[in-house]
């Protein structure tokens, strides 16, 4: 191989640069987010916590299509209480603090869903009432 030294040292520098975020933080992914459990003390969700963690976005999309497109507004019953399908009218009834629940993981995972461009958070609601 020609220019062995140059190529190998170049590769080493490249790999080091690409993996910079990993080794710079000392192979530590930082403190894991701890989303706040419902302040009202509800223990049950529409699906087990692990499933919700993995696929709440799919569930929300399904609910959206059910309600808006298929006129399927069948309510969901969780822990004896009935909820209509919806982010504002179901999820946020228990998870009433978007900043301490939704945002903790979304910020950690660097995702910015557009839900709250339209859906109203309790904080936004309180802000309007204060005006």
């Amino acid at each position, binding site marked *: 191989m020609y220019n062995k030294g140059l190529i190998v040292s170049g590769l080493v520098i490249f790999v080091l640069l690409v993996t910079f975020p990993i080794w710079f933080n000392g192979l530590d992914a930082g403190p894991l987010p701890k989303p706040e459990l419902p302040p009202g003390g509800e223990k049950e969700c529409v699906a087990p916590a692990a499933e919700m963690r993995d696929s709440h976005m799919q569930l929300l999309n399904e609910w959206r299509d059910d309600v808006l497109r298929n*006129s399927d507004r069948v309510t969901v019953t969780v822990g004896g209480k009935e909820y209509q399908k919806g982010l504002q009218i179901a999820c946020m009834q228990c998870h009433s603090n978007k900043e301490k629940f939704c945002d903790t993981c979304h910020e950690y995972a660097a995702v910015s869903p557009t839900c709250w461009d339209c859906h109203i958070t309790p904080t936004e609601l309180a802000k309007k009432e204060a005006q």
Partner: protein
Amino acid sequence: MDNKRRKFLKMAGATVLAGISAPALVKLSSTSAVASGEGGQAAPAASHGNAGGHGEEQPSGVRLGMVIDMRQFYQDQGLLDEAIAACVKAHNVPQIPDPKSEIKWIWKTGFGNLFPEHSQKLRSEKIKNSQFPALCNHCDNPSCVKACPTKATFVVEKNGIVAMDFHRCIGCRFCMAACPYGARSFNWQDPRPFIKEYNADFPTRMRGVVEKCNFCGERLALGLEPACVEACKGTGAIVFGDLNDSHSEIRKVLDQEFTIQRKPSAGTMPSVFYIV
């Protein structure tokens, strides 16, 4: 040499003759085939003829509609303000003072703007001085639905409402150009600062999205009447119901009263009727 040329010309002549006569032969043989099967084909053709003609399509399913009785609104113009306020509150409709960017679900307009196809000449004072409610007509043949490239606006199969899925709207405004009634508004800016009071059960919209009256689909699902109908309760100013159900209240009103629709020539078949 001569012999060869003679032979060649003969062959060429025969080929040309065959080429010309072949299609004619095929045609002749096929017509004879049809002629022999004529007896069998005559019967279905006759039965098809009975079903022909351009009669009105038979309605099926639920088609929600509205009758607006202007006689109630002439008497009490405040009633219209109440109906509009109820809608604004139910749907977080922003109140933008600039008419170029205002958002309208149900709004007030004059007779001339509402019924431009009708004569405006020598109208009574009552009509000239009154404000009329205007809203999405939830047409049976909605041009906005055809214009929408993302299917963000669509007809709900269950009840005939022309609904919108704001999640899908890309803000191209084709629907606004397609709607003959100006029933659609575009959010040129973030609407939230212009909303006085939030309804916590309904979302707002964001910048770059078109919106319009949804016939209170979310309230109907809860067994409630549309907000504007509820605001006029007891007066009979707005009658809401199924246009396809011959026993519904709205059909009784339509049977008894003379009603007009907005721009019938647009061919959209509106579901909102007016008693003027």
